[in-house]
């Protein structure tokens, strides 16, 4: 656990094929310690498949993936005590309350007494900005934003070193989305977290991401935001030339200069 990795995630020569359709071809990607990496790409560019490959939920055709120094294999447990995942719709277990959802990983992976476990779960629930009333509810009784927060609390339950977020702000109204961005960057600042997030939200991208990985031409182009907007690739130019992206970028620059 004390071993230091320069790269929290290392992907080498990843190939994913579905029938004759090649999604990733010899894809290499390194995720650095303590960074927030945004993962963008057009529909069908393979963002979700890449995420699933990193989590061991999808078996790639070729290539190796290491997360925290551990090689990820399909259907084998990954470093699940050290990673947390926020699925797109939360993926909270619908038969359990929020508090039980957050407690579940703690109960499964430690022999901590019930009361301590519960207090730790409550701590995490407070940390993501939910209250006790929300904690005793079932997932289907919560709003989308609250579900995401609850799911984030579960992802943080085991004090993970890596956090995977699948479209954290999708389906949220702009106010909730901004709040969620702030929450993520707050947690990132306070916990030693490396964050990998798929996002379509340009505000999130410009607001909190350190680097951006763009999935184009079956591979990936990674760079800081300032550099990547200058990249000649047509899709990147189109994406970052979009009025919404331009506005978000201006807003981000304005924030920095103030």
């Amino acid at each position, binding site marked *: 656990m004390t071993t230091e990795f320069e790269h929290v995630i290392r992907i080498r020569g990843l190939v994913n094929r579905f029938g004759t359709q090649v999604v990733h071809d010899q894809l290499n990607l390194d995720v650095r310690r303590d960074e927030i990496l945004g993962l963008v790409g057009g529909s069908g560019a393979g963002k979700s498949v890449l995420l699933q490959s990193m989590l061991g939920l999808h078996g790639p055709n070729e290539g190796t993936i290491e997360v925290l120094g551990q090689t990820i294999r399909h259907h084998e447990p990954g470093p699940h005590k050290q990673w947390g995942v926020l699925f797109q*719709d939360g993926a909270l277990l*619908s038969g359990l309350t929020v508090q039980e959802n957050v407690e*579940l990983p703690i109960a499964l992976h430690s*022999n901590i007494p019930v009361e301590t476990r519960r*207090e730790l779960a409550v701590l995490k629930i407070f940390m993501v900005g939910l209250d006790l009333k929300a904690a005793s509810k079932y997932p289907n009784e919560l709003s989308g934003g609250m579900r995401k927060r609850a799911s984030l609390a579960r992802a943080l339950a085991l004090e993970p070193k890596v956090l995977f977020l699948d479209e954290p702000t999708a389906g949220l109204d702009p106010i909730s989305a901004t709040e969620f961005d702030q929450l993520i960057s707050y947690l990132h600042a306070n916990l030693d977290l490396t964050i990998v997030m798929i996002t379509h939200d340009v505000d999130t991208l410009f607001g909190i991401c350190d680097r951006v990985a763009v999935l184009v031409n079956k591979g990936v182009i990674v760079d800081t935001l300032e550099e990547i907007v200058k990249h000649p690739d047509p899709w990147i130019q189109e994406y970052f030339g979009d009025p919404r992206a331009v506005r978000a970028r201006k807003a981000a620059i304005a924030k920095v200069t103030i």
Partner: protein
Amino acid sequence: MAEFLTEKRQNGLLQISLQNDWVFANLNGLQAALDAVDLGNVTHVELSCSGIKQFDLAGAWVLYEKSLDLEEIEIRTDFKGFQEAHFKFLQHIIDIAARKEYVPGFFDPKPNRWLVNGIRKLGSNTIDAVDSVGFIARSVLDGIKRPSRLVIGEIIRQIHATGTTAIPIVMVVCFLMGVVLAYQSARQLEQFGANIFMVDLVANSIFRELGVLLAAIMVAGRSGSAFAAALGTMKLTEEIDALRVLGLNPNEILIIPRVVGLMIALPLLTVFANIAGLIGGAFIGAIVLDINWFSFTERLATSIDVNDVLVGLSKAPVFAFLIAVTGTLRGMQVSGSAEELGRLTTVAVVQSIFLIIVADSIFTVVYSRIGF
């Protein structure tokens, strides 16, 4: 076991130097170490944190809780030598705890609904995926080798959901089947003045064939579809992926309870089905055919032996296995849309009933060959 702290005493002052990793993984050890500190004659505690190698929220929380406990017995606590990152953690904890309204027992369920809620929650807790029938077989074997409490609780819930709640409908159906059999056979037997043999006919068909067959078909309709729909929905909402990532074996907590639970429930249901069928026959015998309850039971004793009952009961676990495996497997195959879910639920029911009938005919042939 690593040392987490060292103590130094000076009159009323207790200096505790914290060391090693104050992280989640060591939580129990940390609490034990703090609890083991002797606080006799101590008025002031100084916690020196510069020796801590790794620190996380859980570690900070333990320290914070301890300082609260000490405050309560009027011992002053100071934190010394924090690295900036560590201090942020502790500050964070204190910020959060300032809003703390949680008291132990807040989440404890109401006592009168504890059982129902507990079982229900445990039930919906069991989620995940199967890739092949081979996986199921392996998981069942694994489960027998080292049964876990989670799985046993769920088996009990499945027995209740597939067995207990099916008793009324199965009994009604079998009672009516007994009525039908008695009527039909009586019409033929009357021609020979052999009314009493209606008892042999009803008892034999109910015990050897119809009791278990009807119970199995009802259960395939009720529980086979429920299995497919439940697992399919879980698949659609990514719940199964979530379990995988949490490091749970989906097969173990999802498939075993359903297969084992149904294999226990169906034989028990069959007993109820048999009883209801006989009552149906006896009922018609008494009111239509002039065979009173006494002569019915007397005739029953001579026309049936233990073997006939065992023939019926021996089929039940096999039928149950077919229903449970078909239902769960089809459920796990759901992907993409809710329509797929509906289609596969239908497939699960149709196929399990088909398999039951095929298995039943094989049983009948084999049993008659070996004279059982």
